[in-house]
């Protein structure tokens, strides 16, 4: 018996590996990102408009990934300024047609492999935001935008802010969960103007 005991204890040790780090968020290094990107290249394939180039990380994605969406303030500010300067703001009024904007906000289509390339995309806005009081099935990942223009007015500065935020949300908050709808070529200039109208036009249901 004396001889068997230590053996049994050893066997127990071998079979009980340390528990997995369940529920803990790992800190991802640049090397981890490269490893994951290599796995995605190996294990994914292009389909329709979803090409393989989409697995390549850009500067924003890299910085947000290695800092779990909480990058050092200085680095974030510098990159935000660079992105802001790259937004191609159209000249003149940025307010389009809120009725067209409402349709764009409702549609969750666009940029998926199941979407026809070239067909007008939507902004998926209601998936995450409350907008018109008529739509009660809104998501809550983003803040409520009810009364957005009523509260802020529709000055040229506000138009520019709304347009820029939709074109590239990351220029205002680097690791925002909001997609870069203009930068990613999901929405066109006119579509973004229509969404700006949905937010700012006093006649828009958002501001009723």
């Amino acid at each position: 018996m004396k001889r068997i005991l230590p053996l049994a204890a050893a066997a127990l040790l071998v079979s009980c590996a340390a528990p997995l780090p369940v529920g803990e968020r790992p800190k991802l290094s640049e090397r981890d990102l490269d490893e994951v990107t290599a796995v995605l290249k190996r294990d994914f394939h292009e389909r329709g408009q979803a090409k393989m180039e989409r697995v390549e990380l850009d500067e924003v994605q890299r910085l947000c990934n290695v800092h779990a969406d909480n990058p050092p303030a200085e680095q974030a500010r510098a990159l935000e300024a660079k992105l802001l300067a790259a937004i191609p703001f159209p000249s003149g009024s940025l307010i389009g047609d809120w009725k067209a904007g409402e349709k764009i906000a409702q549609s969750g289509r666009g940029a998926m492999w199941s979407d026809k390339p070239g067909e007008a995309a939507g902004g998926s806005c209601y998936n995450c935001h409350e907008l018109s009081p008529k739509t009660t099935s809104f998501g809550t990942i983003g803040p409520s935008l009810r009364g957005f223009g009523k509260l802020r007015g529709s000055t040229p500065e506000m138009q520019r802010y709304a347009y820029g935020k939709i074109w590239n949300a990351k220029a205002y908050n680097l690791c925002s969960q909001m997609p870069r709808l203009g930068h990613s070529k999901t929405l066109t200039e006119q579509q973004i103007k229509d969404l700006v109208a949905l937010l700012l036009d006093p006649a828009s249901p958002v501001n009723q």
Partner: protein
Amino acid sequence: MRAVALLAAVALAGPAAAQSQFEKYQQMTAEGSPVELFEMEGEALWRKPQGPRNVSLEKCDLGKGPGVLQGAYAALPRYFADADRVMDAETRILHCMVALQGRSLAEASKRLFGNADNPSEMEYLTAYVAGHSRGVRMTPGTEHPKERAAFALGQKLFYHRAGAWDFSCTSCHGQENKRIRMSELPVLDRPEDARPIVATWPAYRVSNSQLKTMQWRINDCYRQMRMPEPNFGSEATIALNLFLTATGQGAAYNGPGTKR
């Protein structure tokens, strides 16, 4: 049949009195779920001789020994020495189609995701296999070095933002009490949220009358994440599945489930 339907409604209302509206809805969808039909069809396919060798899948080893179905699904994903890799239920079934029945991988994986009019062989079989784990505690493989590597990779994938819209799994499943439209979103790196989810896949979705596998779930998440398409049964999908299942381990398996 009108009287019949009324009777059914009365029978349901009785014990449901003290439940929340949501639980009531869940119970009613479960009572009306045709998921057993998928299990029946799956059983017929499991026993049907097929492929160049004209044999059934009855000798398929899902991790508990050849032909043992009881509790097998609840112990997946896990490492399989004969394939020297971690596999989930769907990947293992595919492996058996090739190794036992002599089918080519291309032929066996021609149609892995079906539709309402014509569900796939894989969907039927997965429902049948999973049905033999009802009530069994979920214990995916977490000790073999390849299982541990898969968990670590799955975890990295879970938090990895990429693609045209900069999404990771946490974009939807990373914060408490959030919704997309009216769908409540579980925070899948929290064990208490992951448990009821991993315990109910595969699942029949009443909104489109289809039985869906976990491989499909991961595939469709990546579609909505605006990413390219993951290969069925690839290391990445299994790593993610193992990460989710290990996070929810310990739950009593309660599927095939019924979902919205």
